[in-house]
């Protein structure tokens, strides 16, 4: 789990570094952008501008279609991605009519259909009500359980910290701290991130799903 003000674009080559290089599973990202983008799926903060399809089904199919997969494979992937995020019954619906939490889950399905190994979430909880946060959180955890590496970039660490296995604090584009979440709680506020409420009250971090 990481904490960075908007630096995740480097991971799948949306941004290319001016100095140095970015490696993904020992390969330079800049050598094969398409592969990097397939390996690292990104869920953007603004789900609305990430959704490109006219229906839920079409949007999920957008990625696999770009990969040039056969029609049957596209269909198989779309259906299993929609099943995974619980939107299978909404597949003919227009994205505009979904709730904010559902839109974010659709964005996840769109990325999932490309079968990435790593999924990056940029501020996944912004503009969501409590049930929406829980929906997305549940989704993130189930993606992790199904073997994906999950990176969450957020200022709002309270909602996710109980499930995090690693915390990276970034400042001005550089990693300043990297360690276990418990170990870094003390210094969080030095870097402009409010420590989670349970920690401030001297308790263990608590899951938002409880």
């Amino acid at each position, binding site marked *: 789990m990481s904490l960075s003000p908007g630096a995740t674009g480097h991971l799948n080559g949306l941004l290319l570094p001016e100095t140095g290089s970015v490696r993904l599973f020992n390969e330079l990202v800049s050598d094969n952008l398409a592969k990097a983008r397939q390996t690292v799926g990104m869920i953007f903060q603004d789900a609305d501008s990430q959704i*490109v*399809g006219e229906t839920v089904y079409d949007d999920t199919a*957008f990625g696999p279609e770009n*990969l040039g997969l056969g029609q049957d494979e596209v269909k198989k992937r779309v259906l299993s991605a929609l099943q995974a995020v619980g939107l299978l019954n909404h597949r003919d619906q227009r994205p*505009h009519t979904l709730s904010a939490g559902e839109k974010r889950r659709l964005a996840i399905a769109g990325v999932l259909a490309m079968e990435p190994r790593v999924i990056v979430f940029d501020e996944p909880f912004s503009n969501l009500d409590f049930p929406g946060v829980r929906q997305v959180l549940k989704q993130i955890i189930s993606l992790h359980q199904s073997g994906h590496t999950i990176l969450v970039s957020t200022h709002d660490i309270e909602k996710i910290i109980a499930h995090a296995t690693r915390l990276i604090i970034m400042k001005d584009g550089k990693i300043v701290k990297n360690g276990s979440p418990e170990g870094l709680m003390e210094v969080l506020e030095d870097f402009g991130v409010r420590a989670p409420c349970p920690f401030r009250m001297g308790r263990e971090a608590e899951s938002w799903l409880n």
Partner: protein
Amino acid sequence: MAELTTFHYYPGHSTLHLLDARFKLVFMILISIASLSAGLAALGVLTFVYAALVLYIHLPLKPAFRELRYFFVLIFFIFMARALTTPGTPVFEFFIFSVSRQGLYQGVLVCWRLLLITLLGLFLVATTRSSEIRSAVEWFLTPIRFIPGKRVATMIGLIIRFIPLVFDQAKMTADAQKARGVELRKNPVYRLIKFTIPLIRRIFEDADKLVLAMEARCYNEDRTNIGLSSSRTDWLALLMVLCLAILITAL
């Protein structure tokens, strides 16, 4: 947003739903062209056919007409223009205005045709997934070398997807300005400028985000095609539509 709720796909399994989108596009063009020169009798036949179709695909007409209210204003103006400008036997006169019998007839004819063509478009949109319409357009454009069919198809898809968002954005901008008393300013030009600039800026910002999101999902022009397949029913339907078009032109 409400303006856009009727013109969309209604999932279903009617024959009209199952027809190939390419054929449906051809049908629409054929009947539109035929009805451009249709007389009263032919329009009557068409209206009868359309009424049957509305019942067959369970099209919700009431909300459709409510959302078409601005279109009816346009239709009314077209009617008035026809009625007032066509010379002939006057029915009634008022100052310099005179409404002729021929004008009324022409007005009714033109408006009726326009309404039927609009309804035809509604049939197409209601029974065809937009991805199928997109593929059909792409299929027709592919033989034309200088038009990039795939790009045009993607653009059509994006436009359909983003119109509601632009409307939402416009409403948000308008509300934010109302909250700060923009209605007290009587100058419409001032209000238009203050409204348009932030709206356009937001739309361009969203477009930038969209580009990033599409790139993140590997967008390229060498994409998988959505399969379109024609069957015997499609050719049978084509025959029927041809007969209908000939009938309309002949009447």
